[in-house]
């Protein structure tokens, strides 16, 4: 039995400690906003924050996150107020199919925490998520807009 703190709530989870955090979130906790894309930390669709650090949850075992603070896309808005990245995403009509966007938004939220005014090079280096619909042009514009917002 492991205790996890997810979006501020504590959950008791009783599964194989090798189970990836992604599948704990999706199948034990019922938070399906975090997506399965590749399972090998390539695509980033499963990105969540663990103690404030963006991680690819498909490759993080349950045993490594016990007692840590986990934030998923469902917990990014605070007190019903969207995170500035979510707002910028809506303003710029970023998602197409949207499947990769939970992970993309979580990656960008962390980028902006570390680099509040990212350069193009910061974005290039920091955002390595795969988007097959190709929303990159809108993603870049929305990152700058989010950075410029309060």
């Amino acid at each position, binding site marked *: 039995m492991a205790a996890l703190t997810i979006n501020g709530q504590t959950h008791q989870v009783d599964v194989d400690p090798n189970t990836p955090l992604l*599948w704990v979130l999706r199948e034990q906790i019922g938070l399906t906003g975090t997506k*399965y894309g590749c399972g090998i930390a390539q695509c980033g669709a499963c990105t969540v924050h663990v103690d404030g650090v963006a991680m690819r949850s498909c490759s993080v075992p349950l045993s490594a996150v016990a007692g840590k603070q986990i934030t998923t896309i469902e917990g990014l808005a605070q007190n019903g107020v969207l995170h500035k990245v979510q707002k910028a995403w809506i303003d710029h*009509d970023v998602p*197409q199919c*949207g499947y990769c966007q939970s992970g993309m938004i979580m990656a960008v939220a962390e980028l902006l925490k570390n680099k509040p005014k990212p350069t193009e090079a910061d974005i290039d280096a920091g955002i390595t998520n795969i988007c097959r619909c190709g929303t990159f*042009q809108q993603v870049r514009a929305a990152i700058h807009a989010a950075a410029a917002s309060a």
Partner: protein
Amino acid sequence: MNYIPKIDRRSFLVGTAAVGGGLSLGLQLPFGPDVVRAADGSPEVNAWVVIRPDDTVVIRIARSEMGQGSLTGLAQLVAEELECDWSKVTTEYPTPGQNVARKRVWGDYASTGSRSIRESHQYVRQGGAAAREMLKQAAANEWKVPVSEVTAEKGVITHKASNRTTTYGKVAEAAAKLEPPKEVPLKDPKDWKIAGKPLKRLDTADKVNGKQQYSMDFKMPGMLCAAIKESPVFGGKVKSFDAAKVTGLPGVKKVVQSGDAAVAVVADTWWQAKTALEALPIVWDDGPNAKVSSASIAEQLKAGLDAETKFVGNQQGDVKAAIAGAAKKVEAVYSYPFQNHATMEPMNATAVYTPDKCEVWTSSQNGEAALAAAAEAAGLPVAKCDVHKMLLGGGFGRRARSEYVSHAVRIAKEMPGTPIKLIKSREEDTSNGVYHPITQCKLVGALDANNNLTGLQMRISGQSILAVIAPSRLAEGGRDPIVFQGLNAGGTEGQIGYTIPNLLIDHAMINPPIPPWFWRGVNNNQNAIYLECFMDELALAAGQDPLEFRRKLMTKHPKHLAVLNAVAEKVGWGKPAPQGVYRGLAQQMGYGSYVAAAAEISVTGGNKIKIHRIVAATDCGTAVNPAQIERQISGSFVYGLSALFYGGCTVKDGRIEQTNFHDNNSMRIAEMPKVESIVMPSGGFFGGVGEPTIFVAAPAVLNAFFAATGKRIRSIPLKDHDISFA
């Protein structure tokens, strides 16, 4: 005869044929008190429009949404004619089963071939217009005034003479009982206020907060999950498996065979099912294809370059004589590989089977084909089955195939009453998918003494999608017409943009045992590379500028020429490029639209490409939502350029070698060029948007690469040439 891979041919074919009869297209209505009601009890004004008492307008969307934006575009078209308040519009998908039960009142469900809007715009607009007239009539009846005296705007009906107003929500019940108008004239697109505008998508809010449900996220009480493995060799079968080895593993409920070539493990969670499946000993009968390799396929296709064939796609004049009499002859062989779709959401479906009913929840590009597949796998009549369509996490053609529905239903049939969610792992999805067809092409061009192009011969050798999945759709004598996409002499779908006096484009059909399928852009992808790169080769041999060389051949193709001119002008063709920057062009017509691209690149070290920008133009006739068209253009380049640089699936021992994104990579934001879109609808027709621009990206970049390096690349992916993004 080549081995033809056995894939779900039937469910593809029966998608539209077996599930229903005539097409009544949403205008026929019951009369009298039998109003058709939506699930919440609100009245249908007609099949396309439900209006709730609070004035919410529910627009029915038959086609699938996979990111391409058709859901929003189709709603715009209905709303435009309906004269409703756009801020009160919401959408819902009627199920394919409901469509069957109502004599296909919503028409075709397929979102393939960039057809969602271009093939349904007329009847969905008529649906909106008919509903508007009925709502007006209902108000006029209530007020006892002639309908000609009432007007409707933003969901409000007004009788100016008596200064009375009402809303759609108040008269919808009465309107639903009226006879629909016999004729419903449609607005001229130049008068559009909702359609034609760059409105935001209707489906964004839930995509930024994790609430959006894809079928991957679907849950039911008591649901179990299944992981599946199919024969790694195409055409192989299951010989045996040792279920006892995994039945004691955590969560495992059952091990089942699905069809003759797949085994699935069912468990409490998918992670448990996948873990157990990996531990399950399976013995395969590899069948006849275990020795097939990329090299053996390439040899087969190469032999087709000079073989006899009767499959002619486009023929003008006497190409043999033109080549024989040429002052200069140019010859080249190109090739295009298999490509995996790699949608972000791997294939999945949830099914519940009982002897009386089978229901499926899935992301499908063709709901009716999914329904047919479910009925066949369940062994039940279509009327006892239904498919609930969910948003697709990418489609690109892959989700027009329904084998994952068949598997889910077969597994569910082993456990009646228990909902089964089947998920294909990314590895299964990559190495056991269906693939962009593989072809080679030999081109011979003839230039006369004045460097005019007098003849062109194109021999395409390779796969036919239709021969494998839908032989009944082949043309005369077994010819596959879609092999010649973009190269046809005429027609409104994909006409070649050049007038060449002596021309022969033909096809030697060779079908290696790797299952081909529609892949965004389909045969246009290779045909555009073959023709547009070779045009640059011919221009070089003629000592002419690639743009000028093309223009001389395009005088009878003004729409092709217009998009080419538009990109040339915007990119600054003919004017000096920035230091170290080189340009390339391409144009093509496909899915009813005319597209062109101009790329600007620089190359360092001979093999590191930086794409600075791509200017892209599309004449899609009528632009229903220019903002979404721009997104489809730039998005299509990510898909197309990923294939150009990183794609290409290879075959060894009868299997696809690639397994996941590490060896079937996709471009990232750092590699994304700036895309400048020119949406230039010339009016009078509706062309497709989702696919056309994808096919001009690769040839434009390859032509720019030649301009930069003098090296002509005739096969992709570029990683095979040790060429990468800078």
